[in-house]
């Protein structure tokens, strides 16, 4: 059974029970009140006719001593009456049917005996009491017809049932529509969930209301959005891994092919000394490339696995320790190095920081620049280190991908320079470990500017504000 059916049945059951219960209570209340009113009216009628009888007995006291067959009495009574003498013998009646008297009560205690009788011809309230007037005494019974009340009650019940059926006839389609209306959005959520399960992650639900179902739709859309994001991230990660594996295989294959080729040549043929030297040089070059590749890969993996402790160190001190590694490299390539480091302290792991700066300087040197300018400056709670060169630069279209592993802008040049396409990936990873922001700017012609923005530790900020 579906939710739609359950809601529909609940509507019908609750409505029917409520309507019928209200009907029973109302009709019964009205009926009891009407009968009670009729009873009071019958008692008043009895009292009135009792006075009529007493008036007759007052003016004609001898009337009860008439013939055995019954008495002649002027018919002033407002309702049918019956008179019984003290021997419980009916001496006068103008009722159509004589009632069965439950009992005769001759005590004068102000209590009237009443009983209700239902016969084929109608329903009646009988009231009886002992009436005295002077020397005369009789039992007076009055009859009040309450058939109209019974008929009214039955008519009311039948009318109520007709109203009930009419309301249901109108209400059934309404309940059906309402149920469809309420369950429709739930159906739409289910449909959207199924489509997402089929792989259509961009599926969303249109939110039309602000009720619980509207909230469910909003939550569902948020969930779908997160799932889409996660799926996208996972797909990207899987693609990156595939690329990484493919690049890695390719980067291995290229030097190994050269190495195997030259080694085979050395093995197969007796070559002159110059050619042997050239072949060995190739093998050495490609071996160094493989070594650099394996070292950087090892660094990348190690960084993912290892926890680093960042120590607050003055930037000037960091660069002071770095320069002995940077300056020979620049001197060797004939590159002028300029350094402008403002005072400031950052939280950094020295070895990682050194790897990051060396990679950036190495890239700048490989870009065949003439000048490298290293600056360090403080700005609003941050410390920014920039390395700017005037080399070949990076085409703007490539900027987004240069932090990918094995990505090389100029593959042939890079390989000649023992590059493996992992340097910027390492820089990006180290920046991420330092919670620093990496920015690379280049127009592809006049050099490259790489900036790493560190957040200043609390002490560093105080120092700045002081």
């Amino acid at each position: 059974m579906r939710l739609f059916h359950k809601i529909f049945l609940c509507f019908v059951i609750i409505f029917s029970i409520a309507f019928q219960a209200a009907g029973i209570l109302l009709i019964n209340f009205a009926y009891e009140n009407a009968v009670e009113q009729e009873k009071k009216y019958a008692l008043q009628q009895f009292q009135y006719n009792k006075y009529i009888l007493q008036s007759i007995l007052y003016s004609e006291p001898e009337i009860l001593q008439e013939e055995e067959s019954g008495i002649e009495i002027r018919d002033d009574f407002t309702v049918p009456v019956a008179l019984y003498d003290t021997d419980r013998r009916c001496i006068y009646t103008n009722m159509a049917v004589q009632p069965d008297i439950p009992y005769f009560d001759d005590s004068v205690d102000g209590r009237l005996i009443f009983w209700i009788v239902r016969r084929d011809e109608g329903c009646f309230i009988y009231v009886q009491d002992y009436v005295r007037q002077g020397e005369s005494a009789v039992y007076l019974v009055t009859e009040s017809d309450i058939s109209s009340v019974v008929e009214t009650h039955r008519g009311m019940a039948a009318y109520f049932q007709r109203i009930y059926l009419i309301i249901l006839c109108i209400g059934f389609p309404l309940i059906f529509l309402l149920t469809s209306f309420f369950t429709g959005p739930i159906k739409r959520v289910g449909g959207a969930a199924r489509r997402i399960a089929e792989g259509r992650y961009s599926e969303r639900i249109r939110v039309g209301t602000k009720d619980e179902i509207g909230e469910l739709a909003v939550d569902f859309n948020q969930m779908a959005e997160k799932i889409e994001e996660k799926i996208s991230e996972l797909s990207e990660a899987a693609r990156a891994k595939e690329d990484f594996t493919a690049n890695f295989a390719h980067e291995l294959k290229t030097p190994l092919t050269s190495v195997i080729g030259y080694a085979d040549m050395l093995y197969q043929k007796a070559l002159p000394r110059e050619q042997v030297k050239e072949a060995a040089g190739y093998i050495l070059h490609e071996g160094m490339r493989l070594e650099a590749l394996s070292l950087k890969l090892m660094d990348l993996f190690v960084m993912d696995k290892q926890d680093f402790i960042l120590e607050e160190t003055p930037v000037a001190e960091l660069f002071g320790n770095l320069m002995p590694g940077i300056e020979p490299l620049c001197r060797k390539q004939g590159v002028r190095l300029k350094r402008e480091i403002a005072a400031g302290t950052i939280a950094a792991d020295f070895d990682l920081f050194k790897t990051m700066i060396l990679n950036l300087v190495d890239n700048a040197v490989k870009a065949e620049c003439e000048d490298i300018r290293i600056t360090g400056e403080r700005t609003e709670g941050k410390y920014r280190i920039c390395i700017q060169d005037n080399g070949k630069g990076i085409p703007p279209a490539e900027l987004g991908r240069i932090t990918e592993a094995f990505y090389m802008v100029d593959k042939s040049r890079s390989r000649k320079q023992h590059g493996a396409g992992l340097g910027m990936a390492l820089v990006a990873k180290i920046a991420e470990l330092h919670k620093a922001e990496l920015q690379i700017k280049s127009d592809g012609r006049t050099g490259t500017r790489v900036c790493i923005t560190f957040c200043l530790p609390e002490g560093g900020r105080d120092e700045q504000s002081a």
Partner: protein
Amino acid sequence: MNRVHKWTLLCFLFAAFFVLGSMAGMDFILQKRENRLLQESGSEETEPPVAVWREPQADEAGRPDVSSEEKARQLTVEQMEEVINYRDSATDEVLHDPVSGQISMEEAIACGEQWLVEMGFLEEEHTGSKNAGSGQAGITAGENNGQILCRRASLGIKKERRNSQVPMEPYYSFWTVRFSGGTVNAVLSVNAVTGSVWDAEITLYNDMTRKFSWETLDLFTKLAGVQAEFENYVDINKTNTGATLAVKDSYLRAQVEYYDIVVAVGNGEDWNAGSDEEDQSMARDDIRVTEYYGGREMHRRRIIEYHLILPVAFSSSS
């Protein structure tokens, strides 16, 4: 038919079954309750709607008041005003048996007959109570010999619906006594405590010359038991068919008015449409036509009404 449609069909069937079942259930329950209600029997105590009459208090010295019985049968003007004001505002009448301190039916009839005699509408020897039990009253009532007979007497109290459960003072009850005779019919409202007549409607078949007079209004007020002097003021209406007597230092008024009822037969023309002088003279305030079949007068009777009243302004302000 797929599974969803099967369930939908089942739901509709179940709903229809439930609806019909609930209708049958309602009929069954109502029938049961009706049967129980219409088999009711027992005895009902008829609580009198009035309290018993409180005995008069002893005087300050603690001596019993020698005239207490007389005082018990008298109401102050304020009490009478209260009663009349209440009667004017009440809607229902509840009949009840006399309670302690209220007069019996025999006493009420006797008071009524005495009033008729004192007001001059009846000779004392023609009263029904003189002949009650003699076996003659019922026979003589229908004959045109001046004999009068009580046709009906009932004790009732006017009640407001909202105060129907509050017992009233016994002097709020009145006996309504109807007399009929060959020459006069009377409907009297007799106070159930004092036995005095507060309202009267007299129908005269003979002695048609009787009109209101100072003396009858004065006498009516005295017989009603008004314990106050009268102002020397009588307001007579424009057609000389009614008058009102003011009671001193009170809003209470005694009022009398008379009019004739004419029964006539004739050719069916409208009474007021007639152009002759006789027809015009019949369209007066003192004549009320109940049946008219032409110009020939068949029967005429005179109605005289006495009432104790309160001005409308007093009634509404109270």
